[in-house]
């Protein structure tokens, strides 16, 4: 039976954020997620908050948006609600792609049927998978657009890696990578990228074949960096670490939205095959060197520095960004690229100062809680508006 692609409003978007649940004693991961989620059931948050594979993680799912500032506002309110509930349990919550010093064998699987199945199949990979990513969904009109956009976005995967990187430390050491999280992803058998199908019918033929081998049952069995999500009518970009702030998360989503808008407006015709030849190499370069990565450009047979590629791309989408109300987000992203500064550099600077990873996580949790500062309560906000 072919997978049906449910159309959605093009260029609408939303995010999923996986977050760390920490104790406030030494800022190691805790197993506080079940208690935190139980408490959040009663709170009225704009986003949904759900369990993840281990009891040290929660996942925030935003609603669907058209403008990034609205998305950011929703994420801030959700963050405040989570921070309040966590405070009552003496827990802290933080962004970041991986916890710098936890021991994977101390993690416990969140006891839902599906997570227990995943754990039974994947063994230690399941607990090792306590890493934290941001998934960005972009709405598309139909399955053919989803396939087109998935292929075209693949070229920009290094951008998202460098801009979101926030996991330089792993198991108590500096990995020398900008992001160490992606190594946990690569271990899964159906990781990587979508095959070179041309359209949705073509994709369905591929899916049927894989299904006939008994390898996959649904789209969720593909752990690709970008994948079509037919039941939402979106493509899902899954490459990024969770940023250290909700602002960072909203800005990255805005970047993806504007990029998608440009790629849909000015259709490319070159085949995906050549881009996929250099995909793995470029992905590694970005993980290892961040903005300093040298990306192979298969069209020009040259290398280009990732920082320059991001700045050139921003130049190209500036006009679209203004139309979509994302000018400020793009400016901020351009500024980060220009200074070659991301969350991983922030974490390394904090480690230089503190000399202790537990203290780095404390500061990381504080940044998540306070940057940007707490949303004003409604009466307070109304008073401020009146004063203006």
């Amino acid at each position, binding site marked *: 039976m072919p997978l049906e692609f449910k159309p959605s409003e093009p260029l609408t978007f939303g995010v999923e954020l996986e977050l760390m649940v920490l104790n406030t004693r030494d800022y190691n991961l805790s*197993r506080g997620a079940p208690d935190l989620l139980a408490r959040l059931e*009663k709170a009225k948050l704009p986003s949904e908050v759900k369990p993840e594979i281990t009891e040290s993680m929660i996942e925030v799912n935003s609603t669907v948006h058209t403008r990034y500032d609205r998305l950011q506002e929703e994420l801030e309110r959700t963050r405040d609600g989570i921070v309040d509930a966590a405070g*009552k349990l003496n827990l802290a919550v933080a962004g970041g792609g991986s916890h710098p010093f936890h021991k994977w064998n*101390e993690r416990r699987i969140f006891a839902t049927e*599906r997570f227990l199945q995943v754990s039974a199949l994947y063994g230690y990979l399941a607990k090792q998978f306590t*890493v934290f990513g941001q998934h960005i969904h972009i709405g598309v009109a139909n399955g053919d657009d989803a396939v087109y956009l998935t292929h075209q976005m693949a070229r920009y995967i290094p951008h998202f890696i460098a801009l979101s990187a926030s996991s330089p430390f792993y198991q108590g050491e500096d990995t020398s990578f900008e992001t160490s999280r992606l190594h*946990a*992803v690569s271990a899964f058998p159906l990781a990587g990228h979508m095959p070179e199908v041309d359209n949705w019918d073509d994709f369905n033929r591929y899916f049927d074949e894989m299904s006939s081998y008994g*390898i996959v049952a649904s789209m969720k069995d593909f752990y690709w960096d970008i994948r079509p999500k037919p039941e939402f009518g979106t493509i899902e970009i899954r490459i990024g670490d969770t940023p250290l702030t909700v602002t960072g998360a909203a800005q990255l989503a805005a970047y993806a939205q504007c990029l998608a808008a440009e790629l849909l407006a000015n259709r490319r015709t070159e085949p995906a095959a050549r881009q996929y030849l250099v995909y793995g190499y470029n992905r590694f370069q970005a993980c290892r060197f961040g903005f300093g990565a040298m990306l192979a450009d298969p069209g020009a047979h040259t290398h280009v520095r990732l920082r320059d590629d991001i700045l050139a791309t921003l130049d190209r989408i500036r006009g679209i960004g203004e139309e979509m109300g994302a000018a400020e987000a793009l400016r901020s992203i351009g500024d980060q690229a220009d200074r070659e500064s991301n969350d991983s550099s922030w974490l390394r600077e904090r480690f230089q100062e503190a000399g202790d990873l537990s203290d780095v996580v404390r500061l990381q949790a504080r940044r998540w809680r306070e940057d940007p500062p707490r949303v004003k309560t409604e009466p307070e906000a109304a008073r401020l508006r009146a004063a203006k």
Partner: protein
Amino acid sequence: MTVFPFLPTLPLTLSYPLLFGALLVAGMLGGEVARQLRLPRVIGYVLVGFAVAPVAAAMQIGPLFEEARIFFDIGLGLVLFDLGRRMDLSWLKRDWTLAATGFAESLFAFGLVFAALTWMGFAPLMAGLAAAIAMATSPAVVLLVAQDARADGQVTDRALTLVALNSLLASVVVTMLTAPVHYELRLDLDTAVLHPLYLFAGSMAIGGAMAWLARVLARRVERNPELHFTLVAGLVLAAVGLAQMGKLSVILALLALGIFVRNDPDRHVLVNVELGRASRLFYVVLFVITGASLPLSAFETAGWAALVFAGARAAAKFLGVIAIAPMGGMKWRQNAALAATLLPMSSLALLLLHDVVRIYPEFGQKLAAVVVAGIIVMELAGPVATQWGLRFAGEAAPPPAPGPAPKGQAAKGPAAKPAETSKP
């Protein structure tokens, strides 16, 4: 003149290192036997203590508790410091129900035990002292059982905070009650007022000064867990020694040290070191000595009164927790588990009793026996209750999965596929 002057003279005198080593190894073995029986290790340590007491008496070592008091104090000092470090005052502010639960269960324990003892005919002041001792939960038992069960979660965190709170309250109330004791002993009013004040202020001052010194020194050395471990261990030992020298309360001083270290705005200057294995050495000896200093003959003197004492205390702890904790949004299962974790009585109660008897010998054979017998009951039933609570709440780490790993799931077709997950 002996023939061989290089030989030791008889009878041999027992050296402290030998005593410490022997108690340590014996305790460890007892703990492992208990673990084989799926009981908390603590019970094994204590039972070894029960067995060691008559041997020590036969060897004319004298009361082990007095001989090895230094190990006892160091062990308890480490426990109390660790416990104080887990008491986060900002948490008590953020969740008022936690502090309220702590006050409720301590107050109920005091009230119910006081009522039971006066009903049985004990004088109010004596009943009050015994009731104050009954407020405290054994920090060492709860810490050790939680450590052995690798427990982590709300019940574990809340239990340790409540234990810190009730230990603190018990010590303060016992200290305050020394005032009427002095008065009753017809000492002058100055002593009656100044002694408790000295105990309280002096102990707090030691805790505060050591916490300050810890931060000052921590700033001077590299921020390295090994260095900070040595620093913390050294200052804890020094605080125990200072409290002894000043005839102050080891309990209050070390609890205060832990609380000051944890709650200072500059607390991150000091690495939150795990005392872990090093302190385990002293914990084992602490429990063996505790066991050895609990005379089973106390039951003969105390009779049913001991069970009334232990029963009233247990009922009060449950009532106190059940009355307030549900308002904090915890599930009933968690609250029941939390109440169970608060039952153990051990070295802290013994030390409080010891202090009371020292100041107030008239405390009476009979009531001391009731408290001791109550401690014995809870020394054995308490760890089991705590272990049960942590398991019942689902916070103890699951035992490693038995049996071979599942094989070849992927070959079974789509039905065996991992279900939906957004990971990776």
